[in-house]
């Protein structure tokens, strides 16, 4: 066994509370909240209901893939704005779609190792605020313009200007494109759909189920404890994930055109996760802290694994990460009561399910002598996923952990596994236990 496959050791790590904002669908213009606004408003109610003061945290860790220009080390910005005080250190983690889960993992490790007792960790993303940048030619031209002092130089410089200099770089598209293989995330999903034979119908059915499940959870009020409402300066408020479409039909989904492989592709806006803004926080505590403040425990973080794979098939990340997690915890898939696999794309989740149950894949790719098994739909993303909720990149990892802990509580499950795929060819998986 390699060192990579040693389970997390040390003191137990508890999650004692958590909250999130609703996920707000991006409407093509910057939304009403920046990533730090979102993180702040998710934190304020959470911190207010704790029996301890915000300055008693040992540290604050926030995952965020694309913080705004005013949010360098966004974790620190939010910690200060939320009143944690100058003495509480804060740092930001970036692992693309895994950022929120990375923040929790980092917090958990420090608690396990005895370096921290009480940590605020989460993820935030305002995808609608992703920057639009000048291109290289324009930046060069501006730099030269700054240096041109004399009128003649300036005129010469002016003559160099081309309209093409004004072509912007859309930060969000670049962020969602893998620079090493040159593929935008949607295309990696197309590759998986082709490799595992996932049909458009399967994808659309999965998408419809996601919307229906989320709508049901909303209608039953099962997200009310998890979500804190947001208020903008224009008199509007947001109290639910507003990308949900309770009445979406297979016909409507079938009518959508593929977005990434435009002519013959299968991946549409309808069966992909939504571009959204949101933030989620969890409070992690050591046993000592739980006793000291008499905290209610939601659950325990047992272990977390990270795996690497071919960037062009990044969507299979959950398979690699979960396999390694189950293996080192000596657990079978049937022992996991509930699963959250982040729905970056319906194609990708369905491909993961097929891969886990596929003997050849498990043998050749994971080195196992048997397939890992199947996950029944009654145990997977029971309240819908990112296709309906949205996928604020840096937030999602934290959101699925928070929600899975709630599911375990609500449905009296024992073990839960939250896992996601990560742009750039990685997977993350976190094992949770109800206490």
């Amino acid at each position, binding site marked *: 066994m390699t060192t990579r496959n040693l389970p997390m050791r040390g003191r137990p790590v508890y999650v004692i509370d958590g909250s999130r904002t609703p996920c707000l669908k991006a409407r093509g213009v910057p939304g009403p909240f920046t990533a730090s606004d979102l993180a702040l408003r998710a934190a304020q109610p959470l911190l207010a209901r704790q029996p301890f003061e915000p300055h008693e945290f040992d540290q604050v860790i926030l995952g965020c893939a694309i913080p705004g220009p005013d949010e360098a080390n966004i974790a620190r910005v939010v910690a200060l704005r939320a009143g944690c005080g100058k003495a509480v250190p804060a740092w930001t983690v970036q692992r693309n779609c895994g950022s929120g889960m990375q923040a929790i993992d980092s917090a958990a490790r420090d608690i396990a190792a005895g370096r921290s007792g009480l940590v605020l960790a989460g993820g935030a993303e305002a995808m609608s605020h992703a920057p639009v940048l000048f291109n290289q030619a324009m930046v060069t031209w501006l730099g030269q313009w700054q240096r041109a002092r004399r009128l003649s130089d300036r005129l010469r410089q002016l003559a160099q200007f081309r309209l093409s200099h004004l072509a912007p770089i859309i930060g969000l598209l670049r962020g969602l494109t893998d620079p090493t293989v040159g593929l935008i995330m949607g295309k990696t999903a197309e590759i998986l759909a082709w490799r595992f034979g996932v049909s458009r119908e399967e994808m659309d059915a999965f998408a419809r189920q996601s919307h229906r499940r989320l709508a049901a959870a909303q209608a039953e009020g099962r997200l009310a404890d998890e979500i804190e409402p947001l208020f*903008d300066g224009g*008199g509007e408020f947001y109290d639910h994930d507003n990308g949900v479409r309770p009445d979406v039909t297979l016909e409507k989904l079938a009518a959508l055109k593929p977005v990434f492989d435009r002519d013959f592709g299968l991946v549409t806006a309808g069966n992909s996760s939504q571009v959204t803004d949101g933030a989620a926080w969890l409070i992690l505590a050591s046993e000592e802290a739980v006793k000291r403040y008499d905290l209610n425990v939601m659950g325990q973080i047992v272990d977390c694994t990270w795996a690497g794979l071919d960037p062009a098939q990044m969507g299979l990340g959950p398979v690699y990460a979960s396999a390694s997690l189950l293996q080192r915890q000596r657990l079978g898939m049937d022992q996991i009561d509930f699963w959250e696999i982040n729905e970056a794309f319906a194609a990708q989740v369905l491909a993961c399910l097929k891969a886990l149950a596929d003997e050849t894949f498990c043998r050749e790719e994971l080195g196992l002598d048997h397939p890992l098994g199947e996950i029944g739909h009654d145990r997977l993303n029971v309240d819908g996923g990112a296709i309906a909720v949205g996928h604020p990149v840096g937030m999602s990892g934290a959101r699925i952990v928070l929600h899975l802990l709630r599911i375990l509580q609500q449905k009296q499950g024992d073990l839960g596994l939250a896992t996601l795929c990560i742009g750039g060819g990685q997977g993350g998986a976190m094992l949770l236990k109800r206490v």
Partner: protein
Amino acid sequence: MTTYRHWRLETDGEGFAWLHFDHADASTNVLSSEALAELGELIDRFHRHLPRGLVILSAKSKGFIAGADVREFTRIENRRQALDLIQTAQRHFHRLERLPCPTIARIHGFCLGGGLELALACHYRVALEEPGTRLGVPEIRLGIHPGFGGSVRLIRRIGAPKAFEMMLSGRTIDARTARRLGLVDHAVPERHLDRACRHLLQHPPRRKRPAWWLRLSDTAPVRPLFAELLRRQVVKRAPPKHYPAPYALIDLWQRHGAGSDAMFEAEAESVADLILTETSRNLVRVFFLRERLKGHGRKDKTPFEQAHVIGAGVMGGDIAAWCSVQGLKVGIQDRAPEYVAPAVQRAWRLFARKFKRGHERTAAGDRFIPDPKSLQLGRADVVIEAIIENLEAKRNLFRDLESSVKSDALLATNTSSIPLEELAEALRQPERLVGLHFFNPVAKMQLVEVVRGVRTSEACAAKAAAFAHRIGKLPLPVRSAPGFLVNRVLMPYLMEAVIMLEEGVPAEAIDHAATDFGMPMGPILLADTVGLDICLAVADILSRQLGGEVPTLLREKVSAKQLGRKTGKGFYAYKRGKPVARKHAESPLPQEAIEERLILRLLNECVAVLGEKVVEDADLVDAGMIFGTGFAPFRGGPMHYLKKRGIEACLNRLEALTQRYGERFKPDKGWEGLKCVGQ
């Protein structure tokens, strides 16, 4: 070496003199005549033994100099005395200005009135760049204008347009604005304050002058034109009949111009005249009334950090937003998000108005926490209830929240009509409940009535006053009685106005009589602005508890859904939020009669309130009416006005009016007590 009571002189190794102003027996520096006399001696001494340079600075943490000693104003008995005081100061400042070495005023915190005039007599000014630094000449608010040469030097320094803007409004500016106007030479953070002074002393630059086009306004041909323009602006805010000071200042400038030294002499003469006017005396009185109200808020030292407001209607939401502006964290709670959202919007608008710098605006927004789940309640130092005026609802609320709040949290209600005692019954510790009665619009109205019920403890009342003070409001302690002070006194005045409307007196004539008396807004327009539904509700409650009738016209308007400004029609019709008023409305009643009916009913109620001890004394009636309703400040308050007019004279008029119009003018029994005191 002579020692001085108020000044400390230090000379450093480079030969620069640092003159620290540290007024004895005071936390703030004021230019008392004693301090001025010592300054005169010091300046004489500098003329004899010239230092290499001179820096004047304050040893007080609060600021440089807050102005002249207003207390001394009240001791001035005649013109001779006034002129003496002013001319002595002018002489000192002239000699300061003429020192041949570089001189600097090193300014932090308040630099007002005489303080700024002193700074202007220095060659250079260096100001601390912090929000607390405020420079200004607020003399106009005391019914005078700068008298220590300040009006001349300010115009010379920054040009007539900006100088008059400062002098006529009395508004203060911050260090950065002062730098932009050229009022100060440097606006720097604390770490550069001494460095900047030294640099100026070592390398004194040429003294700055305003731009040529600003200097142009001070030339003889332009002055009459500009002066006329200024008069037209002022007349809108302050009619010459009531407020002579601004016109006197404009006149003397027009005559002499700041370029000539004759303006110094004229300035002194003018202030000597003004300081003895009734207006100035009364405005000085208002100044002290304000100080007295502030004093109520200084007894308790609770460090408030977080407030919580329940009820996100206009009042509740605006109170919460104001707390946030004043640096408190505040939770704003209501039943569901949809009730909170409009309050957030209004708060954001307020923050945008109050804070120009992005990080300050963000911080104010961050402190303002929408809290539909009531999670912030337990963290608040003060909880303010502002839900609907319903006894049961309020009782239930207080019963529920008592166990969730901090044990030392102040419990307050913003009720205007429910007796505190009835609410307190719901509490296990009824002594904790106070009233904090705010006025609409919260951001503008300075007064907060701090209501003490029979069971309210002294400590809680003091704490409530301290809270009002902490958020920059003026606390007025009142007893829990119907309408407290302001609404109670205002209501008969408003009702009389409506009765006259019923009699066929045009609204315009009624409002004009009131504004001509010196009220900031006529009663009819005021009723429309407050909302006729609200007026009716208050009138109903008060008449139920105190007797009296509510005019039918008011009821008719409310049932016709003509509620005033907010519905576009009330007693006036509104076009784009502005009342459509006729210029010349024929009135069956002469203006004096209208005024008399309005004011005498108001006075009668003041006397009643005083007789019932709703507030402690007559001065507090005046303070409440001036800061709560804008009652003509130059008249010194209703009770002061009443005494000036004569108790007997007022009583006689009331009796005459009772004969003519009936019981509502019947003198309250409080007049008896008043007559005893008066004799």
